């Protein structure tokens, strides 16, 4: 309960220390004062004793009655403080002395207080002459003892009082200060751990009570603030969740878009691969044709050899034969090469067709996209705009109709005024008729019997005029009602006009929105058109390639045919190799034919080479176009990806924010709020 840091212990210890110091100083001052007063008293007593001694010893000294002196000395020496008494004559010779203690024996006296031994000397006179001295030696031991006793007692008493006082103070302090402070302390500790439900009791109108009220006030404010923060945090987290949801939707859309773009890229990659196949095929073709040319050159050289050998036919028939055989083999090799070339061309053709299919797919996609854009455009520009125009026209019509209605109603108003005018005329006439009838009745009455029949007529006229008057009144009422209705109608028409104006504004706004949509769809349509254009260029290039490949095929067929012809020529040559003359002629003719064939093949191969070069360049062009498309699509893809990454970033930020809010909520959850 009482810890080392307790305010009670520290306060009481301090009070004790202060009291102790005060007590010590008091004790020292008290001791000094007592010592001084005791010492004075002792000195006075000794002087008096010495004076008495000197007084009584004058006569005995003269009469040398030492026994008397001794008696006196014994009497005086009863004083505890006196250690020895000496009576000396004028010359300093000791006449009588009484020693209770030697000066040298008084060693145990506390030197703090006084000297070991003190001396008082009084002269002994007889008449006017001095006959000796009385010397009394004494010690302050008794004073020391007394002081020690009184100080010890007072210290003991004060100590007891101090301890008692300490307990009383501790009790009072605990009761008035420590208990309320510990209550507040406990409350504050609970608040510190986050429990805001604790309540501090009313501790009265003193300083501690004020502190308690302050703590309560702070607690209430804190709980209010925390509940506010909680509310805000939950609001923010809800908002973040919504934003996150929205972002997720947008992200899904973008991911789908990215997938579509990837599909297009894949298609174009396929196309590229096929084009690479074409390139490879063409390279193969080129190498084959180079081999062909080499073989042809060889053949040519051999033919030349043959021409030379023909001159020496007889001598070199066998050589010729072997040469012809060689030629035949070479020819076969050419034939084989040509066949292989054909196969390569077929491969190339197939690849080109694949590319064509890929490109067509791309074109189809582009066309679909374009169609969609056009549909949107048509809808917005055609039906949408038409609707808006119709709406505007309709609103205008309504406005015109409303204005017409207003005019008609105004005219009705003026008509009713006209009716009123007519009515007033009728009223006038009716009154006049009434008067006439009255006067007629008067006249008839005054005429007496003669006027009776006339009075009937007058009554009839009067009744008629009264009926007319009542009808006129009714009509007047009706006209008034009509006028009021007209006023209402005018008011309604005015408000209708206002509504129509508002409707007009709305329609114009809708038109504006539609125009913006139209602009957007036009932009997208332009983009699709660009893609379509690029694709159709590609298709054109592919068509050229296909045509070129067909040409190559034709050329290669020619080569194969020529090679077969050559083979025929060679076998013919072989047949006639036995007959030397015929052989010589035949050899000549064969060599000529062979030269012709070789030239033909050579030209065809050159043509093929040219075609292949064209294909190569077409393929290269197409590659460039493909690369452009890929770059464009990659650009789109990159834009999508960057959007995704931006959204991811935003999403991450939101998540961080959300987690921060969650953390805040958790921290807030520590606080218990009432």
């Amino acid at each position, binding site marked *: 309960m009482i810890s080392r840091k307790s305010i009670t212990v520290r306060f009481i210890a301090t009070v004790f220390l202060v009291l102790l110091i005060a007590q010590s100083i008091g004790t020292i001052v008290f001791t000094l004062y007592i010592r001084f007063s005791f010492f004075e008293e002792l000195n006075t007593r000794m002087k008096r004793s010495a004076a008495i001694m000197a007084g009584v010893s004058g006569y005995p000294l003269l009469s040398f009655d030492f026994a008397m002196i001794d008696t006196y000395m014994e009497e005086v020496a009863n004083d505890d403080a006196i250690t020895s008494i000496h009576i000396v004559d004028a010359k300093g010779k000791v006449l009588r002395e009484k020693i209770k203690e030697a000066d040298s024996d008084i060693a145990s006296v506390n030197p703090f207080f006084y000297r070991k031994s003190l001396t008082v000397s009084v002269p002994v006179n007889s008449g006017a002459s001095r006959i000796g001295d009385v010397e009394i030696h004494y010690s302050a031991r008794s004073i020391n003892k007394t002081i020690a006793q009184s100080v010890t007692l007072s210290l003991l008493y004060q100590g007891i009082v101090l301890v008692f006082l300490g307990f009383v103070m501790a009790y009072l302090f605990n009761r008035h200060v420590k208990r309320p402070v510990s209550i507040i302390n406990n409350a504050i500790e609970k608040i510190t751990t986050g429990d805001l439900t604790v309540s501090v009791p009313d501790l009265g109108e003193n300083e501690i009570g004020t502190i308690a009220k302050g703590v309560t006030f702070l607690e209430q404010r804190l709980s209010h603030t925390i509940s506010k923060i909680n509310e805000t945090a939950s609001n923010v987290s809800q908002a973040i969740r919504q934003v996150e949801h929205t972002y997720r939707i947008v992200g899904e859309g973008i991911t789908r878009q990215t997938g579509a773009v990837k599909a297009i890229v894949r298609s174009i990659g396929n196309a590229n691969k096929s084009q690479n196949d074409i390139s490879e095929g063409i390279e193969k073709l080129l190498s084959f044709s180079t081999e062909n040319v080499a073989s042809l050159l060889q053949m040519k050289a051999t033919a030349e050899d043959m021409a030379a050998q023909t001159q020496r036919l007889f001598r070199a028939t066998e050589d010729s034969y072997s040469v012809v055989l060689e030629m035949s083999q070479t020819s076969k090799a050419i034939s084989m090469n040509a066949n292989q070339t054909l196969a390569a061309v077929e491969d190339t053709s197939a690849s080109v067709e694949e590319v064509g299919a890929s490109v067509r797919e791309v074109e189809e996609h582009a066309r679909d996209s374009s169609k969609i854009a056009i549909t949107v455009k048509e809808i917005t520009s055609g039906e949408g705009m038409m609707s808006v125009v119709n709406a505007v026209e309709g609103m205008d019509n309504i406005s015109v109709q409303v204005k017409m209605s207003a005019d008609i109603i105004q005219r009705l108003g003026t008509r009713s005024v006209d009716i009123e005018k007519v009515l007033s005329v009728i009223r006038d006439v009716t009154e006049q008729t009434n*008067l006439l009838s*009255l*006067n007629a009745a*008067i006249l008839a*009455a005054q005429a007496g019997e003669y006027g009776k029949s006339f009075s009937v007529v007058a009554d009839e006229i009067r009744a008629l005029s009264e009926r007319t008057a009542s009808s006129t009144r009714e009509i007047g009422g009706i006209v008034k009602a009509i006028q009021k209705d007209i006023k209402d109608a005018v008011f309604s028409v005015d408000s209708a006009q206002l509504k129509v104006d508002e409707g007009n504004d709305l329609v114009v706004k809708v038109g504006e929105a539609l125009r913006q949509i139209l602009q957007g769809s036009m932009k997208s349509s332009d983009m699709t058109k660009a893609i379509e254009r690029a694709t159709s260029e590609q298709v054109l290039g592919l068509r050229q390639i296909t045509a070129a490949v067909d040409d190559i095929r034709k050329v290669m067929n020619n080569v194969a045919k020529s090679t077969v012809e050559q083979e025929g020529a060679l076998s013919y040559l072989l047949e006639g190799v036995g007959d030397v003359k015929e052989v010589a002629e035949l050899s000549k003719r064969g060599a000529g034919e062979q030269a012709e064939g070789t030239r033909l093949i050579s030209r065809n191969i050159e043509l093929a080479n040219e075609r292949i070069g064209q294909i190569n360049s077409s393929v290269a062009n197409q590659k460039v176009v493909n690369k452009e498309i890929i770059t464009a699509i990659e650009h789109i893809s990159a834009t999508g990806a960057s959007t995704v990454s931006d959204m991811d970033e935003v999403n991450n930020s939101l998540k961080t924010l959300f987690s921060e809010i969650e953390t805040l909520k958790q921290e807030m959850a520590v606080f218990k709020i009432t």
Partner: protein
Amino acid sequence: MPKFTIFNIGDETFGIDILRVLEILRVPKIFSVPGLPEFLSGVMSVRGAVIPVMDLRLRFGMMPAGRKERIVIVRCGAEKIGFLVDEIKEILLLNPEEIKPSPSIFRGCKTEYLTGIGKKGDRIILLLNIDTVLTSEERIRLQESKELLEEKGAGTGKTAQ
């Protein structure tokens, strides 16, 4: 069986013996002529004849209702006088048993101007005595003013010619 011309002044219904009534008119322009006695409102011209006009409403101390105004021209001795009244209602036939003698005071009005009170169904008609509407002094003054007016009328006639 006497007939009466019935008219309203304020909320009250009055009747005048039809034989004394000469004509009923709409209110024409009424001229105020200097020198006329104070009980006359002015004079009016009816087909060339100048006839003094007396407001019966003022005479009976009633406020004019102001809805309609009519002039009843009556014979008063040798003179004609126009009474300004509110609406003329009708010509009514009263049987002799429907005519009661008037009490001395009826509804706060002095009955010295009345010949009697007519009762027809719920309606009560105060029957006016024209001869007592004007005091004898007033009658003389009316005569005098008539002469005055005739002089003036002759004067205006001369100036007109």
